[in-house]
């Protein structure tokens, strides 16, 4: 391929045609006038809402029962914005005569959404399916400090976690 000038290509709509003086000025006016009657694209936000895609990374929800306090998400976080504390509790054995179990109990699970980069690594690394993405986005706060959300709040967001969606043609269905 060789260098081509503006008149040699086929990409422009009308690039090579000799144009009348002032034609561009009139066409410009035409575009704005046409747009004026085309109708707006604005979504009047508080009155009407756009539906974000299912995959949209809006907020991280926590399913507390599944969490085993393994700290994997906290360590994988690029920002170190997840704070986890927990303790061990002894539980009676599942079967009679079995060994006494020791269960990790989550005391604290905070995500600082002011620091969070919404990268989703924590959701991805969680081996126990305790973290989920939700497209929910309406949780702004008046101050940055209030963006630190605890496990109760994160748990509430489990309600808005969407069902997993079907994949496009040709995708290999991965068993999760």
């Amino acid at each position: 391929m060789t260098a081509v000038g503006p008149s040699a290509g086929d990409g422009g709509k009308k690039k090579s045609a000799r144009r009348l003086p002032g034609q561009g000025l009139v066409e410009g006016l035409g575009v704005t006038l046409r747009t004026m009657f085309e109708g707006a694209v604005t979504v009047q936000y508080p009155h009407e809402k756009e539906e974000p895609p299912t995959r949209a990374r809006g907020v991280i929800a926590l399913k507390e029962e599944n969490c085993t306090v393994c700290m994997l998400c906290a360590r994988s976080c690029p920002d170190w914005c997840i704070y986890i504390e927990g303790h061990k509790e002894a539980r009676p054995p599942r079967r009679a005569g079995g060994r006494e179990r020791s269960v990790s109990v989550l005391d604290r699970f905070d995500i600082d959404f002011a620091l969070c980069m919404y990268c989703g690594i924590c959701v991805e690394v969680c081996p126990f399916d305790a973290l989920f993405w939700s497209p929910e986005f309406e949780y702004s706060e008046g101050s940055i400090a209030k963006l630190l959300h605890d496990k109760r709040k994160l748990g509430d967001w489990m309600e808005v976690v969407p069902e997993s969606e079907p994949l496009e043609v040709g995708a290999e269905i991965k068993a999760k």
Partner: protein
Amino acid sequence: MADETPPEGNGTEAGEVVEAAEGAEGAEVPALGEREQALLDRLAAELGDGVVEHAEACGDLVVRVRPDSWRRAASVARSELDCDYLSFVAGIDWMPAEPFRGAPGGEPSQPSQPSDTAYGAAGSAGRFQVFARVQSTTDHHGVTLKTDVDESDPRAESWVEVYPGADWHERECWEMYGISFDGHPNLRHLYLPSEFQGHPLRKDFPLLAREVKPWPGLVDVEGPAGSDEAAGGDA
């Protein structure tokens, strides 16, 4: 508690772990491609013993030249090799990084580099190196040039005369590594405020963001009294 590997709670993928292929370079220098060999030959013909060592890195030619041939290498690359395009000039500090105090290597949160000093492709004479890449926009080849920089008096020849675009790159290298460039008209801070102390990209310059906050992995689960079982192993 700081495990060598993350807790393999479910182990679904543990069996499928595939060992990554070993490094592209073995002990012996692999044969260069035809085009790379031609480039190297022309460089060597012009620079003579200015060429110290060469290597191949992922299909690219890496040539280490003597510090006093550094600018000459640039003009040869520009005039003889048709490398009219300067991609970048940068520095590198080969000093082993301090081991991360939070956890030993393998942690997902923070990599720990090996503590032995190993020099990359085409070797190095010491801690600091300057490397640069020039390319040809017509023949579509490129070469990475490296030169050694004395640690006690880090300086290299400037490329600004050959490639005016080296100006900012060398300024960046100067403030980040403290490597000054002889012949640079205007070596002053590029990114950092002029009163900044230190050279941030040197390996002995700590990353403050990682110092002021405790590593989240350290805050660990306390087991019930008498239990020394690791956390996370139980589901």
